[in-house]
């Protein structure tokens, strides 16, 4: 599950016409693509497969370089592989794995899921974060996190250790937190995303 309506109204709030769709032609005709989502990785991939959306996503995002924003599970799905409930292959757009928070080697056992407001530390300048101060807080809800083998990390967040909270590779942007629940800074991220020009 996942509240698509919350994401849609956040886009509407910053003046963007956003459609909730699983229609191939609609995706083809869109200027930008957002993949939101809360829930399990395997279910997410299964649904994408069943709806026949994997080819169109590869075509539009990888070949046609359409700006893409993955949110929460939508970020995780672009990894090569997830270890949530066994092993599942993802879209594989970034050489990365998705693993569960593990605090077994640490003295302080933090709670899983990681839920609440936490700050993100920039790793480099990124257009998605334009006009947002470094170390701003965003709203997180997740038990698994991204581990990247590529140099695409744009921010990390401290929850027992520094985990990857956002990535960017060419036209592909992905964030672990929920911009639609992160008040003004979250809306600013969405605004920055819709203002991206297709210059990839």
């Amino acid at each position, binding site marked *: 599950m996942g509240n698509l309506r919350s994401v849609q109204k956040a886009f509407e709030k910053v003046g963007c016409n956003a459609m909730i769709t699983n229609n191939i032609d609609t995706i083809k005709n869109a200027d930008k693509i957002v993949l939101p989502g809360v829930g399990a990785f395997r279910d997410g991939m299964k649904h994408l497969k069943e709806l026949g959306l994997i080819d169109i996503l590869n075509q539009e995002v990888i070949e046609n370089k359409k700006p893409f924003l993955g949110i929460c599970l939508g970020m995780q799905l672009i990894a090569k592989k997830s270890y949530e409930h066994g092993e599942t292959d993802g879209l594989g757009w970034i050489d990365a794995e998705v693993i569960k928070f593990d605090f077994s080697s640490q003295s302080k056992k933090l709670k899983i899921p990681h839920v609440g407001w936490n700050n993100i530390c920039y790793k480099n300048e990124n257009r998605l974060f334009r006009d947002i101060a470094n170390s701003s807080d965003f709203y997180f809800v997740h038990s698994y996190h991204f581990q990247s083998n590529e140099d695409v990390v744009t921010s990390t967040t401290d929850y027992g250790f520094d985990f990857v909270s956002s990535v960017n590779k060419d036209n592909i942007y992905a964030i672990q937190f929920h911009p639609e629940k992160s*008040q003004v800074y979250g809306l600013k991220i969405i605004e920055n995303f819709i203002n991206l020009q297709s210059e990839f």
Partner: protein
Amino acid sequence: MLKHRVIPCVLLKDWQLVKSIGFEAFRTIGHPTSTARIYNARNVDELIVLDIDASLAGDEINREIITDIADECFMPLTIGGGINSIEDIYTVLNAGADKIAINSKALENINFIKEASSIFGSQCIVCSIDVKKVDGEYKVFNKSKGTLDIDPLDLAQKYQEYGAGEILLTSVDREGSTLGYDIELIQLFKNKLDIPIILNGGMSEPKDAVDAIENGADAVAAAYIFHFSRFTPDDIKQELMKHDIKVRNISCF
């Protein structure tokens, strides 16, 4: 690291937002949608809305009003009151809420918490416990059943074991009283749970929030202070920051 939250907690009755004292003497304080809009504009960390009509009269969940409130919220929204079934939870979450607060139903059947958290994840299940002090001892209180011979901490620990993601702990004696939070109560809970505790009832000035968090609360909820005083949620957070308590970045945008 995770931040301590300051959460306005408002009551819904007859389509109006109300304020009570000790769960009685309801006063209308405004329209829910406009209140949600104001809290959103004030950039609050989260909003809790409890529908007392639904919980007292056994009415159906008011989906329409929840949708209207959720449409104004670009922060996490918790809805409580009248949650009696898994179906109710679907209704509330689909209307745009992020978490649901359960009180009476959990007292009646604790397995409901287990079922709900296994379907929706513990992160969206908040168990609400109302507490009254009787003859010097804290007891669980229920709006329709009155004071029960149940220890609030035992109940909270049980809720945690069954999958609750958070505890909303309300002192009925302090609720609407402006006497400050019940510090003795939160001290009993300090370091006893692995899940966050939101302390509710009695905040009348920013310093009360500091006392609550220093004595074991992870987050503070309040109603009266935001409606009938000059203090805003930001004032509370400024005070917390002065005491080196980590709160969400609130620099002006």
